[in-house]
């Protein structure tokens, strides 16, 4: 059974595109047929994060307007021949696509692919409505900040109204050191507030910026913690039960120290 999953957040810049690129690549690495759809019309980015920006000929709006067939617009990934990108149009407005057209497109893609991941634009307007139409499930990306969690809460309500129930939470850019000091909300805090199931925790990691610079998703880096975090989410999307990463790497002594408030000055 093919599955269409929208990656959304409400607030901008919290990591939707990074998440989409890494989960798509990770799913493809495990042999699934994956199509990534960049629904951020006018601000296309997924191509760059995947390092595919030089191969684009047609885009999503071309497909919807009938200028080309879906197959012609799909760009094959450099690394995996079972991973494809349907890029967003860069020079068009969000209203160049209607929800009904998106639903039709996703339906068509589901005949070809196992997983369709839709990278949603920030906001709750037309672009959001387009991106969620046709989706079976949703991932909500948030960072441990008041504004991001607040927007996530609003998105959960809007998804429910669109009959997309029980979205899964991805907490991005967590800083275990700050959580320990009591200067950042913990994972549990966010689960308590949003009351949706957690599917992954991705640390704040400069490796992500480096890998984005190169157009090579960090999920492929065996030794990276962020990469491991994405690989775990991929396994959970497959339905496996994977324990959550221990992001605190200070060891028992370090944790005891910080418990006593003494480990903060290094």
């Amino acid at each position: 059974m093919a599955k269409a999953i929208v990656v959304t957040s409400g607030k901008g810049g919290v990591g939707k595109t990074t998440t989409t690129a890494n989960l798509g690549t990770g799913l493809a690495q495990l042999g699934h047929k994956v199509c990534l759809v960049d629904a951020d019309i006018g601000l296309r980015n997924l191509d760059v994060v995947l390092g595919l920006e030089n191969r684009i000929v047609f885009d999503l709006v071309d497909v919807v307007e009938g200028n080309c067939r879906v197959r012609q617009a799909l760009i094959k990934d450099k690394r995996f021949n079972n991973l494809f990108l349907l890029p967003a149009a860069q020079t068009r407005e969000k209203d160049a696509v209607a929800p009904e057209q998106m639903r039709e497109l996703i339906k068509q893609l589901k005949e070809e692919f196992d997983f369709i991941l839709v990278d949603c634009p920030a906001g709750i307007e037309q672009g959001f409505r387009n991106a969620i139409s046709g989706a079976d499930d949703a991932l909500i990306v948030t960072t441990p900040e008041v504004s991001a969690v607040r927007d996530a809460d609003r998105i959960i309500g809007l998804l429910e109204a669109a009959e997309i129930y029980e979205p899964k939470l991805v907490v991005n850019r967590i800083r275990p050191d700050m959580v320990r000091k009591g200067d950042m909300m913990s994972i549990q805090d966010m689960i308590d507030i949003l009351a949706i199931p957690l599917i992954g925790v991705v640390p704040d990691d400069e490796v992500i910026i480096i890998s984005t610079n190169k157009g090579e998703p960090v999920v492929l880096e065996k030794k990276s913690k962020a990469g491991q975090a994405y690989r775990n989410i991929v396994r959970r999307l497959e339905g496996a039960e994977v324990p959550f990463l221990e992001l605190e790497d200070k060891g028992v002594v370090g944790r005891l120290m910080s418990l006593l408030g003494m480990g903060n000055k290094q």
Partner: protein
Amino acid sequence: MFDFLGRLLRGSDNSKNVAKERLRLVLIHDRSSLSPGLLDSLKEELIEVLSKYMEIDESGLEVNLDEGDDSVALVANIPVKQIKRKV
């Protein structure tokens, strides 16, 4: 060490708890205004329940969220016409 003692004494005023508390309050407002029909359906159900026990003046029924600085209260003003006799 003073830092450590201060931390123990202060306990809950680190920025994470401030964030949580602010979120809690802002979400009460956000969630209550999410659907405009919410108060209406609440009113309808209130009338239904209350009518089991008393006769109320439906036209005079008022239900509102009273928003203070750091609290939110549900305030209802419900004119009663007649209380039902105990059986």
